[in-house]
């Protein structure tokens, strides 16, 4: 391991001020006074604090929707207009905050959500902090749960290829928008795809996102929830691009069709995942992926499974149609250079062919999802909701992902 994961996204120093470093734009802040004695020096007290409390007072906090190791999620509404609902994600402060400040995940999330505004990306309305330096993210209120719940509820939810197309199209638009703006999401999975009241898919959890790297700037390969991780990351590639997200999207696509995780490695480790990918897609070799053997983590395979043919794929995913399978194959291509780009995916004829993607109001939905939203938002990235016990013991899947390593020494 040449590069320390700490090299991965050292985000800009926290823009949201800490008390000792007043926001530069406020200009007047002298720093450390408490806002209470602002009567004597109303402006000089701390303009940032005033702005902060102003923002905070705009919302009326309601009941708790969910609570996790990492964050609590509350329902809230605007003071001015009680009909406008939002969700407030209150990031819990741990011991590491004292030393390091705000965790990278929240910083990344704030940083990217503030900049990316797209109908299929969760909206960050505002950020404010409370007395004890707690960060509060005011997020869009998404009451319909997440895509995973729909996939898993095989009893009462059924959906058609047109519905799958509609969902995937929304996801791909969000990804295209991210990539066009130079952002890698790096944690695409069904439970990060929340569903808005009108049925629209919203990409959430930018806790693992990062800007695309410059040449020779290494990125961590220890990212993306393991089931959705592309082969180049298992081979420890440190220079990669948007293709990693496309692989995850391909996994989501396949999961939507077959209603089961495509690469469900058990136990969840890299070796099993590589094995599974070899089994289901084919073994990566120099022929089908030039240069793969030069990657650091590449292990010369003992036996070679030939690349699966179109007919093999069709046999499993016939329900989505020939074009859908074609797109799926191109999204799950081993060689990331051959894999479609986000733009290429949108240019695929699958979207415009029949059946037409379902309209939003026709998409199946599952009621009573506010708690679900709380559940999804409170998680750390890279963590699956299915491993509750493991989490409680402090050895959740999230531990294996880069962001956790940043604080690994502290625990």
């Amino acid at each position: 391991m040449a590069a320390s994961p700490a090299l991965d996204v050292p985000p800009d120093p926290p823009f949201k001020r800490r008390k000792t470093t007043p926001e530069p734009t406020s200009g007047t802040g002298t720093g450390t006074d408490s806002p209470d004695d602002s009567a004597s020096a109303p402006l000089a007290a701390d303009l940032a604090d005033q702005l902060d409390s102003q923002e905070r007072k705009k919302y009326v906090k309601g009941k708790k929707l969910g609570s996790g190791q990492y964050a609590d999620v509350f329902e809230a509404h605007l003071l001015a207009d009680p009909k406008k609902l939002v969700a407030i994600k209150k990031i819990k402060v741990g011991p590491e905050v004292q030393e390091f400040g705000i965790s990278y995940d929240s910083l990344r999330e704030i940083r990217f959500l503030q900049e990316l505004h797209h109908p299929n990306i969760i909206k960050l309305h505002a950020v404010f902090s409370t007395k004890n330096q707690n960060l509060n993210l005011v997020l869009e209120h998404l009451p319909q749960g997440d895509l995973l719940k729909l996939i898993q509820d095989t009893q009462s939810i059924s959906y058609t290829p047109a519905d799958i197309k509609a969902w995937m199209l929304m996801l791909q638009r969000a990804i295209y928008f991210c990539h066009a703006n130079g952002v890698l999401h790096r944690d695409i999975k069904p439970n990060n795809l929340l569903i808005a009241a009108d049925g629209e898919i919203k990409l959430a959890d930018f806790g693992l996102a990062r800007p695309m790297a410059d040449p020779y700037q290494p990125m961590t390969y220890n990212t993306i929830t393991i089931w959705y991780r592309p082969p180049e990351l298992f081979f420890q590639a440190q220079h990669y691009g948007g293709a990693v997200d496309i692989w995850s999207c391909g996994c989501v696509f396949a999961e939507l069709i077959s209603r089961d995780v495509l690469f469900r490695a058990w136990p969840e480790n890299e070796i099993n995942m590589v094995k599974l990918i070899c089994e289901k897609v084919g073994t990566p070799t120099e022929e089908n992926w030039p240069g793969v053997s030069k990657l650091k983590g590449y292990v010369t395979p003992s036996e070679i499974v030939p690349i699966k043919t179109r007919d093999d794929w069709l046999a499993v995913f016939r329900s989505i149609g020939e074009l859908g399978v074609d797109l799926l194959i191109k999204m799950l291509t081993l060689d990331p250079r051959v894999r479609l780009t986000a733009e290429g995916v949108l240019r695929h004829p699958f979207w415009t062919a029949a059946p037409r993607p379902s309209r939003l109001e026709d998409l199946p939905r599952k009621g009573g999802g506010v708690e679900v939203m709380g559940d999804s938002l409170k998680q750390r990235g890279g963590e699956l909701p299915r491993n509750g016990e493991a989490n409680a013991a402090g050895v959740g899947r999230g531990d294996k992902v880069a962001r956790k390593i940043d604080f690994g020494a502290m625990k």
Partner: protein
Amino acid sequence: MSRLAQSNRAAPVAKRDARTAGVGGAQDGELLHNNLERMNIDQQGDSTDNRPKSEACPVCNSTKYLNSNLRFLVNPECYHKVCESCVDRIFSNGPATCPIQGCSRTLRKHRFREQTFEDIKVEREVDIRKRVQAVFNRREDDFEGLRDYNDYLNDVEDITFNLINNIDLEDTNRRFEAYQKANQTIIAENERLAREEKMGFAANQKAERLLARERRDAARREEEDERREIEEGRRDVLKRLAAGGDAEKVTKEGQQVQLKKRLNKQAAAQRQQELQNAAGTGNGTAASTMLKGLKARPKKAEPEAPIDPFGGLRFTHKYFEMQDDYRWEGIQDTMKDVRHMAGGYDVRDFTQRSLVAAFSGLGVFAGEEGGEMEKVMVDEKALGTARADLGLKDSGMAEAPR
């Protein structure tokens, strides 16, 4: 007597009527204004006043009294009454003029039919109404509101009234034809919908009846099961008592088992009920959309636009054009570096980003942007897109209009 005979025959006639009106609607419509013009003349004449007094055929003078099988037929061209045998005789060899004195319409045999209503005026009015209805078959859902729909109904009634009473015939007929020509597809579509509605209603009722029967059967089965279970429980208790268990304990246990079973069943029944309710509401909405029918149509018109996978989003660069290849060793080296390439690192992403960064802010003026920012703040709803626009502008990208 004749009246009796006629009213007896009314039902089959009505059926035939409906058929001719439905199938031959288009032809009828085309001929309509000619007919009406002619009727203009006919009306003042014979057809109305000679009706009550004579049950004799005006052509051959045979009467009901002599021939009890005598049937009278009329032709919607002129509504003159002629007996069946005369029709056969005169029109069998193809079209001929009306045998009534002073009427020179050319009539065809296939258009003769029995009278449904005794009063020929009513007969004629019903015919006209049928034809008008076949063309002016707009539905309430086609209109923005009740007001518009009522206005439309009023217009239609005006036209109908004019046609019936021969007021402004030329003008009315022109309007009628113009409308028909302009709205051919909509007329056909509405006709289809009306037909479907009729069929859908019947199907729904059938399904409902089936469901009800199933429910009854299930209830009966459940009752039987319950009775059998109680019986079994009792036998079980007896058996255990016979085997020499503690009487009190055994009975208590037996009761508990019963109770548990009943609770389980109640829960199951409730679930069942819920399921049924869900299914019921599902049916309900289906039925209601079917009845409302047209509500769906404006929406159907919308998707005419082909799917744009990009959702209207395009990134164009105002200030530069991307080249495939850049002669800068930083890039060239990277492109040769196998570890970058094999990992899927795309140099174009980097060059594009650098270029965007280099040109970002050009053409954006602080004053304008401030104004836009304020606008964004005011309009919460547009917040997302407007900010995105801002961001794009900021980075030298422009968004195509949605």
